[in-house]
């Protein structure tokens, strides 16, 4: 347990390291969380101090349009303090007010690279400019979206459809010089992305020199919908549709955020049921990713076998929730379906089968080097880069960072069950796979414990008191890493602001660092190693800049290249 003075000592350290007078207000919300309001001009300084000196990771950043309640905007940086002096894990929220007539604040990105995407997103959606941001391009909004129109502002209706304008996105490598650099475009829909994404590879022969990307082609406006049309009890059902694989984690994360904001006590049994379902989801997601890695390494036997084993996990989900996906289970205050004893017994039997089958398959996969030879020393993400980008989940743990929300900020029943993060230090694709492979076994153990120790009692909170303009932060360790939801709840059972940060959001910016120096054939494997979902169509455009040649390759072709480790024939 963390005593109150700890968070106070962190805040006073932060204050002492900032120029005098820059901290305006401090609000200690709980022994683990504090909101620090700083002056707009020193927000970058405050974030950098909290990130590097207090050992923080950037978990999310939120821009909020507070009008008409206040005369302007707010910008929140949510930092998870994990590498602190005394090892405590805390939430530190650093925020500032931004006036409406001058919506600007200094950018933290030059000193904290993890803030890059967040600040661009806030600029796109709310029109709050981060000054001195190194990347002036759009991130979230489509390129043909009209200038000066910001969809997350309160004066923008959720159903508005503005006319487009012609435009073009400019891909730019960080530092690429010299002749003979050829651009290879991967996308607009990547085979392994959970969102369609367009990658531009800058290659020298076969070697990747740099990578640039354009994403958010399917930005669906879920946040806007959640904070305008829906009531907060409807939102869990759309929250779980944010992702097709780790949907339950999002619903759980959202409910935790609202529960925290409204001060709802979730019954213990509901906490255990949530834990069980989260772990079932992790098993099936990790088995999917391990299978896909085998597929891309042209080791289809492993792919088929792991998917066969995964089917048991899907069946467990069906028994527990009534659907093959763990959907429709969460409401604010608890869960909707209980786990009776006979079903729990059935699940335990199936888990035993899953474990033995899984170990057999792993043993067979490990008996030869087909997979290992493709993954070892490929896509290395050094620990330092991982730290500066605040990567999450198996990507962080594969690079030696012991980050696991279940351990750092225990939620549901993880405090009682005690989870230790599984860490590998290699930083390559293989390490990330090993982390996942070991986590499947860990998840099986957690489910067994949880089903065993589950206390009796109600599964949903009786009463929920409305509160006005309260903040809540929910964090859940989804299969791919930490999901963070930030909510501001209004009295009329709607949301004032709902900010979703999926785990892959923090992991994508690491792709260029992982890819530099490796070949085009390794690229799909590297992208797969951060575990994005599989999308169906894929086109690859190969552009030879010197001759202006454009060639499109089919999805089959790039997967074939990856599997055969083949050579891209750019000229033909």
């Amino acid at each position, binding site marked *: 347990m963390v005593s109150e003075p700890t968070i106070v000592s962190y805040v006073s350290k932060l204050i002492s390291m900032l120029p005098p007078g820059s901290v305006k207000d401090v609000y200690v919300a709980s022994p683990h969380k504090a909101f620090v309001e700083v002056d707009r001009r020193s927000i970058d300084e405050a974030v950098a101090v909290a990130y590097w000196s207090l050992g923080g990771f950037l978990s999310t950043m939120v821009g909020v349009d507070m009008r008409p309640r206040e005369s302007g905007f707010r910008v929140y940086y949510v930092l998870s303090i994990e590498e602190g002096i005394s090892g405590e894990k805390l939430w530190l929220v650093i925020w500032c007010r931004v006036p409406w007539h001058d919506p600007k604040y200094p950018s933290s990105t030059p000193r904290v690279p993890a803030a890059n995407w967040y600040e661009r997103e806030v600029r796109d959606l709310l029109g709050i400019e981060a000054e001195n941001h190194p990347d002036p391009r759009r991130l979230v909004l489509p390129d043909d979206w009209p200038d000066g129109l910001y969809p997350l502002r309160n004066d923008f209706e959720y159903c508005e459809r503005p006319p487009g304008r012609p435009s073009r996105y400019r891909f730019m490598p960080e530092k690429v010089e010299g002749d003979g650099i050829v651009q290879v475009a991967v996308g607009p829909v990547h085979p392994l992305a959970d969102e369609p994404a367009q990658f531009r590879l800058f290659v020298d022969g076969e070697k990747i020199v740099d990578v640039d990307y354009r994403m958010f082609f399917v930005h669906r406006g879920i946040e806007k919908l959640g904070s305008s049309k*829906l009531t907060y009890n*409807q939102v869990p*059902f*759309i929250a779980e*549709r944010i992702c097709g694989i780790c949907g339950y984690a999002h619903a759980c994360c959202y409910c935790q955020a609202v529960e925290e904001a409204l001060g709802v006590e979730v019954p213990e049994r509901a906490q255990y049921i949530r834990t069980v379902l989260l772990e079932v989801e992790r098993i099936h997601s990790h088995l999917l990713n391990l299978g896909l890695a085998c597929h891309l390494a042209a080791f289809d*036997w492993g792919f088929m*076998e792991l998917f*066969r084993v995964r089917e048991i996990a899907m*069946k467990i989900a*069906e*028994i527990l*929730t*009534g*659907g093959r996906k763990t*959907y*429709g289970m969460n409401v604010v205050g608890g869960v*909707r379906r209980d786990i009776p004893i006979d079903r729990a017994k059935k699940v335990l039997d199936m888990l035993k089968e899953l474990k033995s089958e899984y170990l*057999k*398959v792993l*043993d*067979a*996969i490990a*008996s*030869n*080097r*087909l997979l290992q030879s493709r993954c070892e020393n490929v896509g290395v993400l050094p620990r330092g880069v991982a730290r500066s980008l605040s990567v999450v989940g198996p990507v962080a743990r594969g690079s030696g960072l012991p980050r696991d929300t279940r351990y750092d900020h225990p939620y549901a029943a993880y405090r009682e069950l005690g989870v230790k993060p599984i860490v590998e230090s290699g930083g390559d694709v293989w390490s990330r796979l090993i982390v996942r492979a070991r986590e499947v076994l860990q998840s099986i153990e957690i489910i067994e414990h949880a089903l065993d120790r589950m206390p009796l009692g109600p599964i949903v909170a009786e009463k929920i008191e409305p509160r006005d303009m309260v903040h809540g932060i929910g964090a859940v360790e989804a299969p791919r890493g930490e999901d963070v939801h930030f909510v501001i709840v209004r009295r009329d059972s709607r949301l004032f602001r709902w900010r979703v940060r999926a785990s892959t959001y923090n992991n994508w910016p690491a792709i260029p660092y992982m890819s530099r120096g490796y070949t085009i054939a390794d690229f799909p494997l590297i992208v797969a190693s951060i575990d994005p979902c599989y999308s169906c169509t894929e086109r690859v455009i190969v552009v030879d800049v010197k001759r202006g040649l454009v060639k499109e390759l089919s999805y089959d072709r790039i997967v074939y290249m990856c599997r055969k480790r083949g050579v891209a024939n750019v000229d033909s």
Partner: protein
Amino acid sequence: MSILKVVRHSIKRGVVTILYPRVPIEVDEFYRGLPKLDPRLCIGCGACANACPPEAIRVEDRDGRKVWRIFYGRCIFCARCQEVCPVGAIELSKEFEAASRSREDLVFEAIFEGAKCRACGRYTGVTRREVELAKEILSLSETPRELVEKLSEYASMCSDCKRKLLREKLAGVWRGGGS
């Protein structure tokens, strides 16, 4: 380095896929498939339409009748409708094969006759079954019999007529003659 282990494993495993469309897939006992309405039980109250998060179920007025309508294309199989139904008319079936070539196949409608006002003869906006159920609940309650009869009368009137009646009664009380 032995690929033999893999081969041995596969031979031992044998065929695991099934001939799905020809061999049906068995789902769990409490599976959540397509929601099915039992029109014999439904009273057309619209509780399910209120609860449905994606608005797959809607209840609309059509010439005094209530039309209950589900579009399976929007359904997310959350079972909220089943949870809130006061008469247990909706149940999530074990059926999951909803694929179809036409959109119309995914729509299911049930039409309920509207109740007419006892006084003016216009539609009241509720269904006959709702009125009947309200009367039934009243008669089963411990309310005094006279009051039950009086309330049952109100139940089959439109809101305009109810207001008129109340107004007249209040005026009667005001004059000192009301009951």
